[in-house]
């Protein structure tokens, strides 16, 4: 992490504590541990079996922000993994080779089960096939079909529910020795929905001018609990309540978005961002935005662990397994390109944004393949300009600060120039 001083709010401190406690639980040795992915993670279901939830992407992110991912990736490449493939996978495999130490400094235990929630990302399947070779533990596949035609079909939903009943739940019962209790699941799902309401309120607070929050860089913090091991818990409810209070206070005081360097003095540009952030230079990357007075009012990355605003999805305790299926089917990377375009168009309009920025990630074809077509289509539909930059998730070799800054500057100045010329109607002088 950077040595610069960081301004943190109470909710951030609370989250830090929550994450710390989860790592302590994972590494403590008392609880059974599952590894599973953020998109389509079945936290409420795992809780029914008292299984701790360890998410490899989050570990890779933590390592990247501590500047450790680079050497882990090189380690994996030395062991025969191609330089062409996903760096989350390589950071994970490299971490294992380097002793598998959790962010709390204790070694990760071998997982008791790999819950392969195969949702919106092809690499997930290979990732856990690779981990399975290492851990030789029970591995259960939950295949979530791709919602290619914009909405999930009955067949897809039935298929997921059947996999839950026939494969996932029996495996978790066996691993944990705890019988599945559907009412316990209902209880957790009810709590999920409460937190999800506040989450959506938070997401939509950035429709205001100025936006009280940054919904990309700040957003990744705000999404933390709901995307990870806390959905369905009282802590998550409390966290989102607290966050809401903080944002309401910011609104009342007319503050611009909060950054690690304090509140933005002025909001000059409002952007919608598509694609995950870069993690190795996260703070420098953010700084390029807030120094220019740019705030991100909506982002697709904050939908990667579940889409709650676009079509109003909430976990539904009355249809517990079906709602898990719908949740998985609906995560952002499982959506078709036309749906993603529609989502972004609506974001640009409803959040009154100046334009769309795409951060195209080398590692992530699920996000990246087709983004140039999306950009053109969105520009055409909204008349708002798009910009395209390229970085990577956790590979420091793929973040060229000068390059990114150059493009961002050009983009902001282009927006300025367009504004000044009133949509270029005025004369050149």
């Amino acid at each position, binding site marked *: 992490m950077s040595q610069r001083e960081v301004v943190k709010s109470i909710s951030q401190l609370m989250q830090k504590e929550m994450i710390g406690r989860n790592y302590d639980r994972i590494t403590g040795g008392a609880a059974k541990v599952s590894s599973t992915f953020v998109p389509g993670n079945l936290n409420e279901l795992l809780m029914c079996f008292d299984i701790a939830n360890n998410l490899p992407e989050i570990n890779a992110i933590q390592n990247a922000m501590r500047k450790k991912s680079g050497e882990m990736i090189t380690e994996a490449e030395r062991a025969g993994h191609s330089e062409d493939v996903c760096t989350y996978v390589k950071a994970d495999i490299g971490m294992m080779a380097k002793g598998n130490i959790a962010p709390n400094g204790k070694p990760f235990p071998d997982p008791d089960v790999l819950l392969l929630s195969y949702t919106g990302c092809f690499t997930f399947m290979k990732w856990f096939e690779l981990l399975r070779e290492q851990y030789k533990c029970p591995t259960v596949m939950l295949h979530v079909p791709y919602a290619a035609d914009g909405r999930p079909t009955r067949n897809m939903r039935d298929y997921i529910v059947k996999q839950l009943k026939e494969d996932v739940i029996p495996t978790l019962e066996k691993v944990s020795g705890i019988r599945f209790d559907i009412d316990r699941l209902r209880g957790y799902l009810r709590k999920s929905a409460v937190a999800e309401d506040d989450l959506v309120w938070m997401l939509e607070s950035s429709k205001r001018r100025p936006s009280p929050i940054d919904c990309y860089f700040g957003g990744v913090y705000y999404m933390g609990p709901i995307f990870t091991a806390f959905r369905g818990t009282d802590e998550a409810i409390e966290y989102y309540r607290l966050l809401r209070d903080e944002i309401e206070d910011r609104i009342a005081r007319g503050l611009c978005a909060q950054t690690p360097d304090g509140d933005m003095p002025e909001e000059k540009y409002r952007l919608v961002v598509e694609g995950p952030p870069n993690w190795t230079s996260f703070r420098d990357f953010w700084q390029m935005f807030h120094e220019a007075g740019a705030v991100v009012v909506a982002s697709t990355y904050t939908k990667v662990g579940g889409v709650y605003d676009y079509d109003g999805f909430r976990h539904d305790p009355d249809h517990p397994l079906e709602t898990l299926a719908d949740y998985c089917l609906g995560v952002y990377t499982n959506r078709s390109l036309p749906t993603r375009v529609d989502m972004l168009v609506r974001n640009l309009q409803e959040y009154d944004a100046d334009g769309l920025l795409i951060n195209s990630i080398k590692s992530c074809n699920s996000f990246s393949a087709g983004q*140039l077509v999306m950009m053109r289509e969105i*520009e055409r539909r909204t008349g708002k*300009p798009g910009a*395209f930059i*390229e970085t990577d998730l956790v590979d420091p070799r*793929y973040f*060229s600060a*000068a*390059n990114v*800054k*150059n*493009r961002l*500057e*050009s983009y902001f*100045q*282009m927006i300025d*120039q*367009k504004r000044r*010329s009133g949509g*270029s109607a*005025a*004369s*050149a*002088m």
Partner: protein
Amino acid sequence: MRTFIGIDLGSTTTKAVLLDENLEVLGRGITNSRSNYDVAASVSKQEAKIGARFTLFRQALGSGGGVELLLEVLERNFRLEQFLSGLRQLEETCEAYLEDPRFRDVKGALRQALSAVFRRIEEEAPGIYAPGADRKSDFFRDIAGSRFMNLSESVSRESGVAFDAMLNIYDKSIIDIESRVSSDETVSRQLSNGLSRALSEVKGAGIGEAGARAALAKALECGLEETYVVGTGYGRVRLPFPKEHIRSEILCHGLGAHMMFPGTRTVLDIGGQDTKGIQVDGNGIVTNFQMNDRCAAGCGRYLGYIADEMKIGLHELGPMAMKATRSLRINSTCTVFAGAELRDRLALGESRADILAGLHRAIILRAMSIISRSGGVTDQFTFTGGVAKNEAAVNELRKLVRENYGDVTINISPESIYTGALGGASFARRAVLA
């Protein structure tokens, strides 16, 4: 008079353009970029001011006979003056380095040897700037460096003084010289001396000496106020300018191309490090742009690698490619593999011309995809950057544009290297008078 200046700090050269209030170009200046960006900017600015003096001189001379000839002769003689005073400074600096304790034992011999070298360069100097003389570069560092190298080698052989020591002193000194900027007074003196040389050279050509001197005096009298300066280019962030004086090169390029060719709607710039596709509206305002992604494949530097690999000059690539009888298909424009691909092809017995034709096509294909990404080609199309000087590349571009976008006017300006600086200067003008 009020002037508006744009400075484009590129990776290899720094350019400046000086505009008057009516957006007329008064002068252009160029110098090699160096580690001290501030100096590079100042030198290019001074060069642009020199250009402006010439413009003013021409105006003061009026349209009498022999004006063009006089200007041409003055230009050469002024450059000679400039070179000679640079050389004097270089020699003085070298002298100062002789005081270094490690040269204590050889100081006398070294001084003699250096002096011999500098005398010979001085003797050669008029030849370097003689009418019709061919210079590979106009930058002092390049000319003085190559002469010094050649001459000190033979002097070293004759005198027995270590070549390395001479080179060492030169290397240190040239860095000092490169960090200096000529003052306005120095420039005035050089111009006056240059004019004296010029007048004696054209004696009998019917040019009035008194009139010329008066015209130069008038041109030198005119104050060139730096009303507003805008910096752009890849090194712009390193310019010691306040933020509002800095503009992205994309915007400057778009506006510069519009200034040169007002009908411009699409701009392609192939520079050393990047390739840009820019769309502008009728007022030169950028509406969309794309640059090459992280990978610098197919940029100008690629041709540089190829030239190095073939051991020929960059400017010789185009003409050689023009001699091709067919164009080979080259798939990789990766700079890293450029050499390997070339050697592979040569080993297969392919001709250099045919390979080069293929390489030029590959670069332009890559540029076409960047243009396509930015929104395609709309009439008129302006091509800028170093590669726009390469005839083989231009031919391929014309062909591909015609095939993919039909009949489109393609503009290429001989001053295209100044496009970014020109755009910057126009922004400077707007900042004050908008």
